[in-house]
């Protein structure tokens, strides 16, 4: 979703020197506060021992990100963020958690042995992303008083004029993921009759349901 920043850039090349860090405006303060809340919710998401709570904290995190997009005047990106991530991805997550009967209360086995490796990867990824964004925009400021720099029209124009190649590449990638998901689910269905011993014990709907829902999400993202 870094497109928001990219899309906003052409219209926001006002000089940075006139804006200091020491006299923040109300919007900047709100941006920082929402950012802190988002960060806090993200940390709780990965540290909480209650699985469904983690998914719900993820809603707060993604919602916080949407508010940040709004504050950066990227309205379209904000609503798409809510539509795709809160409305579909988190619903899919909750669906999976319910199917696997996520317990109410703590799951003692929710901790992974790989947590240090995960932390390292997360920090590396975060550093790379922050570095790229900071290096790309440095002291660019968005003029909040003028026309919205991230309105639907501006976003659409820059997406389909300047960034149409990455956009098409992404569509092909998502299409490949969609086809791959269908192939994988077909294979799982073909294998089932051989392992007929498990049929009686397991709840019959578990596996096909999860693999059925996978393509639906991909399709939705592709449609976007």
């Amino acid at each position, binding site marked *: 979703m870094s497109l928001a920043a990219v899309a906003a850039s052409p219209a926001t090349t006002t000089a940075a020197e006139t804006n200091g860090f020491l006299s923040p405006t109300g919007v900047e303060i709100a941006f920082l506060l929402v950012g802190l809340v988002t960060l806090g919710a993200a940390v709780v998401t990965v540290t909480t021992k209650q699985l469904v709570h983690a998914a719900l904290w993820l809603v707060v995190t993604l919602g916080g990100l949407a508010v940040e997009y709004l504050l950066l005047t990227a309205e379209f990106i904000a609503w798409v963020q809510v539509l795709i991530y809160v409305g579909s991805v988190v*619903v899919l997550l909750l669906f999976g958690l319910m199917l696997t009967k996520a317990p109410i209360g703590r799951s003692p086995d929710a901790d992974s042995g790989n947590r240090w490796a995960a932390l390292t990867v997360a920090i590396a990824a975060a550093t790379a992303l922050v570095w790229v964004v900071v290096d790309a925009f440095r002291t660019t400021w968005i003029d909040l008083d003028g026309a919205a720099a991230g309105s639907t029209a501006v976003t659409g124009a820059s997406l389909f004029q300047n960034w149409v190649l990455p956009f098409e590449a992404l569509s092909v990638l998502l299409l490949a993921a969609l086809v791959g998901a269908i192939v994988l689910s077909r294979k799982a269905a073909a294998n089932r009759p051989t392992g007929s011993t498990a049929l009686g014990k397991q709840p019959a709907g578990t596996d096909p349901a999860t693999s059925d829902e996978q393509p639906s999400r991909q399709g939705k993202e592709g449609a976007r």
Partner: protein
Amino acid sequence: MNDVLDVALRLLIVFVVFLTFPLIVGQTEHKVMAHMQGRLGPMYAGGFHGWAQLVADGVKFAQKEDVVPAGADRRIFQLAPAVALLPYLLVLLAIPIGPGEGAVGEVIDAGIFFVLAVMGVGVLGSLMAGWASANKFSLLGGLRTAAQLLAYELPMLLTAASVAMAAGTVSLPGILDAFEWWWLPWQIVGALVFFVAGLAELQRPPFDMPVADSEIIFGAYTEYTGLRFALFLLAEYAGIIVLCGLTTVLFLGGWHGPWGADGLGWVWTLLKTAVLAFLVIWLRVTYPRLREDQLQKLSWTLLVPLSLAQIALTGIVKVVIQ
């Protein structure tokens, strides 16, 4: 100061609409269902044809004890009704009922995306309730809700996108400004798909598998009593208002009317919304509940292809007339 007053007034009007319209639809449902089934419906509360029945229901709900099951996840259980209800209040803000800037709670640039996104969030309430109740019927209801949402949000989005293509804008007032009468036959397939998918998202009959009272005892809401249960019910009826209002705005031309009555645009909007709400009630009385697999099949094999065809048609006509 004038701006503040203006905003406050708009919020107040939307809030009043939010509190009263669902009750009107609920009362209409009582009476319409009753008459369609050869009954009279509520006749006593309030005197005239039982008009105060829902007020009496509200008082009853408020008096009931608020029970949280011992095994439930307390905080999420209590939070769920608010998550289910509030999104519909937000959506009402964006629906224009008349021409001009004055007749909408708040003009939102990406209006279609806003309403669809926020409506999707409302379903999280049912999921939270289903999981946090620590009840197998509730869990089943939650699962069915999620499966239904994933199936029906796609056709809804696609048909809304078709209208946006036709109008060349994603803002709801902008779509109404661009509306012409011949959009009605042009987008009729999209309108049907949108309305059906919306019914499914609201879990109204015949798509009420997730709440199916005769088999999983109201699904995610099994454990709820008193005010919290009333909030879920209110969310359902507010959802009807929102869905009918959106269908009116996107497909039926909102405040446009055949005799072009100036200043009476809001009457047209309300009239169309009311007719659609009547249709929702009618469907509830008419059709039996779909089975879960029929429900999924209807979406993936009928609604999604139809909405894709509608998009193709919209694109072709749009290119031809330019």
